[in-house]
């Protein structure tokens, strides 16, 4: 075998490898033998780092010298819900500094949940001559000044996407920094920005970029402007509208309807802030072509939603507020037979009484009527084991099932039993389930089911569930493919964690907050497992100042070959080999 490997010229192998894009496969190739490892590392162009602290920039650069595209993720997922304190970390600057030197031909940077400063953006703008793609997803720490630097300097920029980022919005003037000679824009997403950009600059930009495919405006762009933009870019495939709040004016309406009907390539619609239902018919002409519809910021009630959705027979993805109600989901199930992904968000997440007629029945209908449905995120206020059983049987193809019953520890509303059996049915029937979030009243029994059947499970989110350590033990010992586990407010303690310490090295990360893991156990874990970073996050002050048996507030454990990080804030303590020896 060795002889055969050596007999292929490198160029041939490189050419063969170039057809293999998936990281997993690339990693497998690199482990075949030393020469394949060498060849592969020189021709890897795309890197994905799921946890920016798992590896250092220097290590990545050393192994992969010719990277063109990098994706980095920073904070843990629960940061989206404000469970990670401000200042925890996830700074991209050290990466940019290192890559500015090592990867002058870098073309793409994609970041998620990272802290990005204007300094970083300015360095990107200056350092990478062929820079093409910047995606900042749920990031923070930068202002529109940084965006201005990108706009002014990146002559070959194709994509600028600020998906859900928190931007210090100083003014809309940054958009005008795109030079008049700049024409290569393909995708622009500024939906998270608050302030008004210059409409004439926007129109001119849109007008001179013939390859523009995706345009997601921010709420500051009023309805009257939308028609003009659409006429400048009838080739658009994805559109995010600005705000739609306006009294119905017949001329604005007909102008808009006309503009929409000219966009024959439109497949995805989003935005719809403050939409007045009377304007919705303006989009009817393109509904049959839509595959993706995001109405999750629109307070449209179910009658108007039904009218809209019934026209979208080719819809594959729908994000909507629970205003759609059961009756709307029935209509969805009847009209949209190609539906693959559904997300129903709560319109009133903090109210105690249901404000809409949305129950478990809506989800049952959709699972029945949409044979291709495989991904669901559903917020509701009541659930039953019977419904979950029906859903599981109707739709064994779920790959992602996230159910959030709004009130913690809510039992089956029919039987007042825990929902263990229902979720058990989901994991048992859905053999390809990769992502699961559970809620409602749950005992350790549900974790027995999850450990037994969740063999393909990669990401699991738990909250207010379980009776004790056994629950966690079932999950850690049973779910062979588990990569990310995030837990809050569950009575899990030291034993399961310490018994399954080795498992943690096979995972990307474990988050536990408001559980019962003691400081002593954290120290022990950090000491035992040198390739794990065990971070204790506690805003009450040094854990040393409390008894060892005292549970820590938050715990974040992740595997890393970079060792302890050096940018920890004052409320994060790293448990490493020395921690057991440190004096209190």
């Amino acid at each position, binding site marked *: 075998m060795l002889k055969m490997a050596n007999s292929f010229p490198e160029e041939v192998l490189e050419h063969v490898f170039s057809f293999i894009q998936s990281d997993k496969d690339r990693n497998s190739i690199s482990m075949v033998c030393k020469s394949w490892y060498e060849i592969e590392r020189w021709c890897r162009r795309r890197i994905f780092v799921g946890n920016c602290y798992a590896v250092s920039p220097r290590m990545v650069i050393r192994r992969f010298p010719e990277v063109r595209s990098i994706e980095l993720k920073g904070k843990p997922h629960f940061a*989206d819900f404000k*469970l990670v304190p401000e200042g925890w970390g996830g700074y991209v600057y050290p990466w940019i500094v290192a890559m500015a030197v090592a990867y002058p031909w870098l073309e793409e940077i994609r970041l998620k949940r990272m802290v990005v400063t204007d300094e970083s953006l300015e360095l990107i703008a200056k350092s990478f001559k062929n820079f093409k793609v910047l995606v900042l997803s749920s990031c923070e720490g930068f202002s529109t000044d940084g965006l201005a630097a990108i706009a002014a300097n990146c002559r070959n920029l194709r994509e600028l996407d600020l998906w859900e980022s928190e931007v210090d919005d100083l003014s809309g003037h940054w958009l005008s920094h795109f030079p008049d000679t700049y024409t290569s824009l393909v995708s622009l997403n500024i939906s998270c920005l608050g302030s008004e950009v210059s409409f004439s600059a926007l129109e001119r930009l849109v007008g001179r970029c013939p390859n523009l495919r995706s345009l997601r405006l921010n709420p500051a762009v009023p309805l009257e402007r939308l028609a003009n933009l659409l006429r400048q870019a009838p080739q658009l495939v994805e559109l995010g509208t600005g705000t739609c709040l306006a009294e119905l004016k017949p001329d604005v309406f007909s102008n808009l309807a006309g503009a929409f009907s000219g966009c024959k390539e439109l497949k995805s619609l989003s935005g719809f802030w403050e939409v007045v239902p009377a304007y919705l018919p303006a989009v009817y002409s393109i509904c049959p072509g839509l595959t993706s519809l995001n109405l999750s910021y629109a307070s449209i009630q179910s009658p108007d939603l039904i009218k809209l959705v019934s026209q979208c027979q080719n819809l594959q993805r729908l994000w909507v507020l629970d205003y759609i109600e059961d009756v709307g989901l029935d209509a969805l199930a009847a009209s949209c037979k190609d539906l693959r992904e559904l997300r129903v968000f*709560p*319109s009133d*997440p*903090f109210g*105690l009484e249901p*404000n809409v007629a949305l129950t478990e029945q809506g989800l049952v209908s959709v699972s029945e009527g949409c044979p291709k449905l495989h991904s669901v995120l559903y917020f509701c206020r009541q659930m039953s084991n019977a419904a979950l059983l029906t859903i599981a049987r109707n739709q064994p193809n779920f790959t992602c099932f996230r159910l959030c019953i709004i009130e913690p520890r809510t039992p089956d509303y029919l039987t007042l039993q825990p929902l263990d059996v229902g979720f058990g049915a989901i994991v048992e029937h859905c053999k390809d389930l990769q992502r699961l979030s559970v809620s409602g009243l749950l005992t350790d029994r549900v974790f027995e089911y999850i450990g037994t059947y969740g063999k393909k499970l990669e990401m699991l989110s738990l*909250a207010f569930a379980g009776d004790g350590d056994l629950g966690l033990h079932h999950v850690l010992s049973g779910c062979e493919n588990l990569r990310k586990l995030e837990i809050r407010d569950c009575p899990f303690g030291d034993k399961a964690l310490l018994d399954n310490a080795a498992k943690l090295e096979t995972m990307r990360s474990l988050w536990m907050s408001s559980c019962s893991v003691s400081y002593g156990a954290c120290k022990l874990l950090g000491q035992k497992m040198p390739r794990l970073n065990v971070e204790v996050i506690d805003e009450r002050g040094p854990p040393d100042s409390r008894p060892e048996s005292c549970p820590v507030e938050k715990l974040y454990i992740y595997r890393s070959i970079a060792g302890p990080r050096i940018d920890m804030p004052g409320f994060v303590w790293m448990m490493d080999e020395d921690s057991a020896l440190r004096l209190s």
Partner: protein
Amino acid sequence: MSPENRNVEMPESEETKLTLGLPGDQSAKSGIKRGFSGTIDLNIGGSSEDDHEEQHDSDDDDVDVGGHIHLRSSETKAPEAKAQVVGWPPVRVSRIKNVKKSCKYVKVAVDGAPYLRKVDLQMYNSYHQLFTALDHMFSCFTIRNNLNYERKMMMEPASAAANGMEYVPTYEDKDGDWMLVGDVPWK
């Protein structure tokens, strides 16, 4: 001709019982939505005809020039808020900012107008928009907004008094006090 009072009555049905509060507060399980202490609470909830009549009479004695739009408040105080659970339900911050309650339909009654109208407070982003909309609805009357009113009072008290057919919007808060609309930020 003395200006008529214009009253806004609250609907009595349970669905339109409303309370404004900070996002994230959770009230106790009694089902009454939360209020919060320490700030002005605009409680819009069930009404009683008797209260309405009393207010009508007392308003005639008010010194205010012009009429009033009254937003009726509920007499019940919200119970103590339940302890806040951070990060639950798991909804991103950007969605919470957009969260609105179910439609806040509010009855607007004007003495002298032949019928009442209903207005959805959520359709508007500012007091100015609300007044403009009410203007359109009651096109025979004009609503003076808060700022203009104050300016006129300071500079030309005489002319303010002369604008006989203009209206000043007021509402009744949970303490039963009649407040000028516009002091509290819209949200």
